[in-house]
């Protein structure tokens, strides 16, 4: 007797549904890793002696190996950096120990060899944000728009008044004593 070949009964239709469901689940749940960062243009390499600067134009920031902050010899927290920078650069009360015009302001940052990168980036981010805020304010007052929306010529006007001049010195090789 010829054995009847029994076809295996498998309803393939619902398997496709399950597969589709799993696929859609993974499509939705997968995130493409998006990088975020702080863009910086490093200053040119310069090996010579530093140029003359007036002491009142420089905001001295010192960071020690324990990631403690000293701004103009006063201990501070990173969170207060932005306000301090804005106050220094704008000099609203026309104090003698701050720059006369905002374009002359220089922020000087001195780290210890053992300062952590995280602290450095946070400080940089706060200084950067301070300048973005000041530039935005001027953009609103002068051009009634956000700084990002301005034309290049208008941005240059603002950049002339608020250039971010950051001077980073070689890291210290000893921990700071108070």
């Amino acid at each position, binding site marked *: 007797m010829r054995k009847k070949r029994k076809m295996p009964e498998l309803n*393939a239709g619902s*398997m496709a549904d399950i597969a589709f469901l799993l696929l859609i689940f993974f499509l939705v749940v997968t995130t493409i890793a998006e990088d975020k960062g*702080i863009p*910086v243009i490093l200053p040119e390499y310069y090996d010579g002696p530093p140029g003359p600067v007036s002491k009142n134009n420089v905001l001295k920031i010192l960071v020690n190996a324990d990631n403690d902050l000293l701004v103009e010899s006063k201990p501070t927290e990173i969170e207060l950096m932005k306000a301090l920078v804005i106050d220094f650069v704008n000099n609203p009360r026309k104090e003698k120990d701050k720059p006369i015009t905002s374009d002359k302001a220089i922020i000087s940052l001195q780290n210890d060899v053992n300062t*952590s*990168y995280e602290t450095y980036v946070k400080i940089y981010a706060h200084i950067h944000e301070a300048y973005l805020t000041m530039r935005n304010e001027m953009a609103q007052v002068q051009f009634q728009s956000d700084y990002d929306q301005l034309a290049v010529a208008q941005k240059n006007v603002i950049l002339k008044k608020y250039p971010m001049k950051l001077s980073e010195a070689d890291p210290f090789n000893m921990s700071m004593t108070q």
Partner: protein
Amino acid sequence: MPFKRKKKDSPEVSTASLPDIIFMLLFFFMTVTVLRTASAQVTVELPETASAIKVNHEASEYNIYLGADLDRENPKVQINEYLVSMKQFEEILESISKPLMDFEKMKVPIYLRVDRNVKMDIVYDVKLLLRKHGLRKINYIVKNVRRAESN
């Protein structure tokens, strides 16, 4: 009978292979979720800031990794897929920058992926080498977090 009763036709295209195709697609998406050419060979935990902006990746970029377990005496730097010593790192920078004009060097994007606990002396040395070779367009890659207070 004028009409022939249509026999129920079995579908000519066998749908049994359809789930196989779907499973293949599924496994593809499960494995290819990180779209990066060179992955970090060192552990890097990025610092967190609140004001980072989205990075637009370009073709000829260089990713510099400084890992968590850095040896202070003989630090290893990873640039794209090469994990090298400082001296070799400088040679690589030299080979990148030599054929370029100054204005072209300014356009080469360099992404610094540094672990949050790396000390500043190594970072400073890397930045100094980049400056020496004119590769000044850098980007500190960080994790963006929402800060509680506004402004």
